[in-house]
């Protein structure tokens, strides 16, 4: 299967997207049709108030539905059944097509890979790759310049429009009308503080920082380095004392003639 296939469907992403789009379109069409039929259906009976006579007594049961109503229902049912059958046919066809496409995707992908690899190796062999790189660099720089120009243009246009809007507004008049002090007085700062829930916020920030891990790691690293240094130093002192005793005091060949493995951790 394709590289994008997942365990559930095993189809490439493009095919899956196409299938999902078709599903959504069909579903939307079905919903629209259902809504239309619901709208056009005649209500089965009037409200219960109409089922009483003028005297307030219970009305006799309504007369049997005329033949045409039954025909309409039969026609509607048949049409719905036929529509569903058509949808089923389309579904089966789509599935088959998707399966075929998924089966075809693998060789196509393989062929594309081979073509791309071959092209790359050929290009790198005869120097075309360098030329392509040069061209790509030129194109990239050109594109950067274009983007910069566009961004500048957009920004200046935005600034100009804002400036025009601000110039058209009489800000002072608006400020005169608005009593800012009253607005500020109406703001319940305590409620804002309560709603912010600062302890929870601080807790979350501290959780994100994970101070404990930092302290743990750094102290563990320092401790490991210290212990390593102690081991290396003490082993060196051992060797020195042994060598001194062997050479100076006992005047014999040193016992650690064969160099031992360096104690302590492996060198970085």
């Amino acid at each position, binding site marked *: 299967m394709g590289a994008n296939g997942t365990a559930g469907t095993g189809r490439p992403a493009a095919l899956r997207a196409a299938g999902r789009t078709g599903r959504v379109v069909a579903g939307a069409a079905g919903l629209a049709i259902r809504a239309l039929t619901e709208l056009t259906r005649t209500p089965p009976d009037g409200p219960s108030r109409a089922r009483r006579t003028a005297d307030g007594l219970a009305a006799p049961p309504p007369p049997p539905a005329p033949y045409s109503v039954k025909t309409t229902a039969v026609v509607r049912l048949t049409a719905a059944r036929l529509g569903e059958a058509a949808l089923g046919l389309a579904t089966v066809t789509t599935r088959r097509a998707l399966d075929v496409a998924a089966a075809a995707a693998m060789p196509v992908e393989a062929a594309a890979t081979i073509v791309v690899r071959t092209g790359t190796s050929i290009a790198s062999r005869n120097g075309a790759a360098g030329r392509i790189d040069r061209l790509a660099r030129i194109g990239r720089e050109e594109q950067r310049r274009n983007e910069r120009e566009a961004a500048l243009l957009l920004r200046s246009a935005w600034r100009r429009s804002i400036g025009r809007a601000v110039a058209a507004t009489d800000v002072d008049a608006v400020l005169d009308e608005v009593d800012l002090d009253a607005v500020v007085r109406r703001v319940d700062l305590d409620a804002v503080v309560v709603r912010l829930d600062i302890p929870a916020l601080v807790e979350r920030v501290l959780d994100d920082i994970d101070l404990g891990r930092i302290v743990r790691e750094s102290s563990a690293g320092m401790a490991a380095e210290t*212990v*390593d240094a*102690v*081991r290396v130093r*003490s*082993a060196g*002192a*051992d*060797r020195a*004392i*042994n060598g001194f*005793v062997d050479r100076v005091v*006992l005047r*014999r060949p040193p*016992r*650690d003639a064969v160099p*031992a*493995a360096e*104690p*302590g*951790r492996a060198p970085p």
Partner: protein
Amino acid sequence: MTAAGLVSRCAASVVDVGVVAAATTLAGVVVSGIRYTVDGPPFTFPPLPGWAFGAGHTLLVVLYLTAGWTLTGRTPGQLVLGLRVITADGRPPGPLRALVRALVCVVFPIGVLWVLVSSRTLAVHDLVARTVLVYDPPPW
């Protein structure tokens, strides 16, 4: 693997002495705290005769060394210094061998000086228990 020399052995012993002293102090503080809670002030360490203190400490040290060498092949001090006690087959000593080594260590501590003249850098307790103390830092 080389046998460890005098400095490493003494440094490991210093660490071990610190560990045992800390354990003794902690036990004393706990016992005194219990006594203080039950009997009231003053807060004093339990009045232990000197011989009982010495004998208890000796027993504690022997147990400590035997347990360390039997279970992992090293005491905490030897762990810090990256040393390990092994027998001829390269494994940690058994309980009996570790007990013999610990007893010789405690009774005749000066025997560690034999590492200076021993051609294989062995101490007296190594010779008696037929063990070797090698440089073998733990992998972590």
